[in-house]
C-alpha cells in the first residue's frame, strides 16, 4: 500500500476486492493541492467507507442522502464563503463530490444541474459502474444496451436493457461549465491529468470515471483493470474532455478491438453470445461505433 495514496481514504474500508472506486478516489484526491471536503451520495462508496463507529475518511466528509450530494456540497461551499468573509477561515478548500451513476444520472440529476448552474466551486465525480450495484444490480440510465440486470433480466422475451446510455457528459457540458471529462481507471496518467485540471477549476467541473463492478458485472476480482482497459481499446469507453466547450479525444486506438472482446469478459453480457442474440450483439457494436463517431465528430469542430 502506497501510504501517500491512503492519506485521504484509509485502508480498512469494506469495498469488495476487485472494486474500482477505492483507486479512483485515491488517484483523484492524490492530485489535490489544497485541502478537500467531501460530499458523497448514498451508494457503495458511502456504505463501505463509513460503518459506524469507524470511518475510512481522513478528510472532512458528509453523506446526506441518495439524490442530494450536489445540493449538500452547495451548502458546505457557501458556508465556507461566509466563514471566509468573516475572516474565520483563510485556507483555500476544494469541494469534491463522489456519486455513483444511480445517484448522478438518475435520482441526483436535478440537484447536480442546480449546483452546476449556480457555479459552486466543486468537482463532481461520478464513478460509473452502469447500474444500482449497492442494491444488487438494477438497471440505471447509465446501464449499457444489452446488459442483463435484476430489473432487465434475460428471458424468453428479453435480451437485457433495450435503451441506450443517457448522454450525461453532454447534459453536464450544456451547463457551460469549463471542464468536463471522461476517464478510465485503467488509464492512470490520463485520469491524473484530468483530476489535476478539474481540481484547478475555480467553479464547477465534472469527471465521469469508468468503474468496473466485480460482483454484478460478474468477473474475477483480479480483472477490473484489464476489463477497464478493454472498454477503452474497443471504443466502448472513449477518453475525452470538453474544455470550455471544446471536445478533445485524449486517445484513439489505431485498430479498435471488437466490442465482443470487452463483453465476453463479463457475466452480464453472457447471453449476447447465444445464437439467438447474434443480432443484439451486432447492435451493440453498431451503437459503440455510432457513439464513438459522434464524439469524434464533435472533436473535429
Amino acid at each position, binding site marked *: 500500500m502506497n501510504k501517500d495514496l491512503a492519506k485521504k481514504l484509509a485502508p480498512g474500508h469494506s469495498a469488495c476486492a476487485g472494486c474500482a472506486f477505492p483507486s479512483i478516489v485515491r488517484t483523484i484526491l492524490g492530485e489535490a493541492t489544497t485541502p478537500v471536503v467531501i460530499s458523497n451520495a448514498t451508494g457503495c462508496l*458511502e456504505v463501505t467507507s463509513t460503518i459506524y463507529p469507524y470511518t475510512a475518511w481522513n478528510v472532512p466528509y458528509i453523506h446526506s442522502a441518495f439524490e442530494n450530494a450536489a*445540493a449538500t456540497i452547495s451548502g458546505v461551499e457557501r*458556508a465556507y464563503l461566509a466563514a471566509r468573509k468573516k475572516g474565520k477561515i483563510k485556507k483555500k478548500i476544494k469541494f469534491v463530490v463522489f456519486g455513483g451513476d444511480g445517484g448522478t444520472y438518475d435520482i441526483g440529476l436535478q440537484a447536480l444541474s442546480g449546483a452546476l448552474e449556480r457555479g459552486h466551486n466543486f468537482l463532481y465525480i461520478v464513478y460509473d459502474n452502469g447500474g444500482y450495484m449497492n442494491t444488487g444490480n438494477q438497471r440505471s440510465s447509465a446501464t449499457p444496451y444489452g446488459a442483463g440486470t435484476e430489473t432487465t433480466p434475460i428471458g424468453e422475451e428479453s435480451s437485457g436493457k433495450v435503451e441506450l446510455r443517457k448522454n450525461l457528459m453532454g447534459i453536464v457540458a450544456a451547463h457551460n461549465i469549463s471542464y468536463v471529462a471522461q476517464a478510465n481507471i485503467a488509464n492512470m496518467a490520463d485520469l491524473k491529468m484530468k483530476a489535476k485540471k478539474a481540481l484547478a477549476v475555480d467553479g464547477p467541473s465534472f469527471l465521469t470515471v469508468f468503474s468496473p463492478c466485480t460482483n454484478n458485472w460478474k468477473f474475477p476480482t483480479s480483472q477490473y483493470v484489464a476489463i477497464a482497459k478493454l472498454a477503452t481499446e474497443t471504443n466502448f469507453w472513449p477518453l475525452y474532455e470538453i474544455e470550455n466547450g471544446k471536445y478533445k479525444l485524449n486517445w484513439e486506438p489505431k485498430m479498435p478491438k471488437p466490442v465482443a472482446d470487452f463483453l465476453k469478459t463479463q457475466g452480464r453480457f453472457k447471453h449476447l453470445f447465444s445464437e439467438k442474440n447474434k443480432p443484439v450483439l451486432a447492435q451493440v457494436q453498431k451503437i459503440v461505433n455510432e457513439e464513438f463517431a459522434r464524439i469524434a465528430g464533435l472533436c473535429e469542430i
Partner: protein
Amino acid sequence: MSNSKNNNKLALTGGYAAAYALRQIEPDVMPIYPITPQTPIIETYAKFVADGEVETEMIEVESEHSAMSAAVGASAAGARTVTATSSQGLAYMHEVLYIASGMRLPILMVVAARALSAPINIHGDHSDVMGSRDSGWVQIFCENPQEVYDKTIIGMRLAEKIKLPVMIIMDGFNTSHSVENLEILDAKTVKKFIGEYNPEHSLLDIENPVTYGPLALQDSYFEFKIDQEEAMGKASGEYMKITKEYEKISGRKYSLFEEYQSEDAEKVLVLIGSAAGTAKDAIDDLRKKSENAGLIKIELFRPFPFLEIAGALKNAKEIMVMDRAQSIGSYPPLFSEISVSLRNVHEARISSMVYGLGGRDVFKKQIERILEGKFKEKYLT
C-alpha cells in the same frame, strides 16, 4: 404590554416579521426556494441582501429538497443556517428533515403552514406541518406576527442550545399575509441575545476531520434514535428558560401554551395558531353571558407538553379540541395529543373537531356555538 424604551412599533405581516427577525439574526447561509405563502419571507430577505444590510450567503436552489439538503451541508460546515417553506415544499423536504435532526443540526426554518395537494390549495391549514411532527424537529406555533417575530429569535437560540432543528410555524395567509402592529427589538439586543455560534464540529475544520452521516447498523442505530428523543425531551425546559430571558428584554411572555381564561373554566377549547385570536374574542363574549369558557393555545407542539397540559386541564368538564389538520384514518393530531395527555388523569369529556382546512374561515359565532354545546359535528365546514 412592554415597558422597554428601545422597542419600536411597526405594522408588519407575519412573513415580513419573520424576515425582519432573520435580518437581525443575520444567518451565515440561507438556501431559498419560492412557494406560496412563504415567498414574501425570502423575497424580503433577498432585498436585505441586495441592499447590503446583511452579509448572508443566499443559495437560490432549484427545489425545496435541495434547500434542506444545502441547509444540512451549510449547518454541518458550522454555518448559522436558516430557510423557509410551505406545504408541498415541506412535504418535498420530508426525507431531509430527518437527516437534519438525525445529524443534530440546529437549522431554523420558518413555515407558513398551508394545505397539501390534491386538490391543490394555497391557503392556510396545518396539514403540512402535522406531516412533519415525527421528524425530530422542534415545532413552535405562532398566533400572530408579533409571535412570529419573537419566536423566530427564540427559536434560533433554542436550536443552537439543544442541537436540534426548529420550525417556527405561522398560519399561511391568516398570519403570513395579515398586517398587525408589533414591537421589535433593536438589532444590538437581538445579536446579544442570540450570541455567536461556535459549533463543536465543522466540515471546514480541516485539521480535525469528521464524518457526518455514517452508516449505523443494528448495533448502533437504535442508540442514535434514543439520544435524539432524550435531546428533544430537554427542549421544553430550555425553551422555558430562553423565553424567560426573552421576557426580560422584550416584556413579552411565552410559555409551552397560553392559558386564556381557562384556569376556572368548565368548558375549554384547545387549538393552535391564528384561530386563537378569534377564540379569545368569542370567550370574552361568552364570559359576559356568564358562560364559563376558556382557551388553551398550544405554542410548543414538539416536544408536546403532556404533563403540563394535564395539569392545566384538570378542572375542565368539557374539552373541545379543534384541529386544523386531519390524520385520515385516525383522530386528528392535536386531539390525539390531548387525549394522551389526559389519560388516567380525569374524566372530562373530550371532543374532536376539524376546522379551517384549505383556508376555510372560522368565525367567532361558530366558536361560541361550539363552546355553548350547540354545535357538535366532526367538521366545522
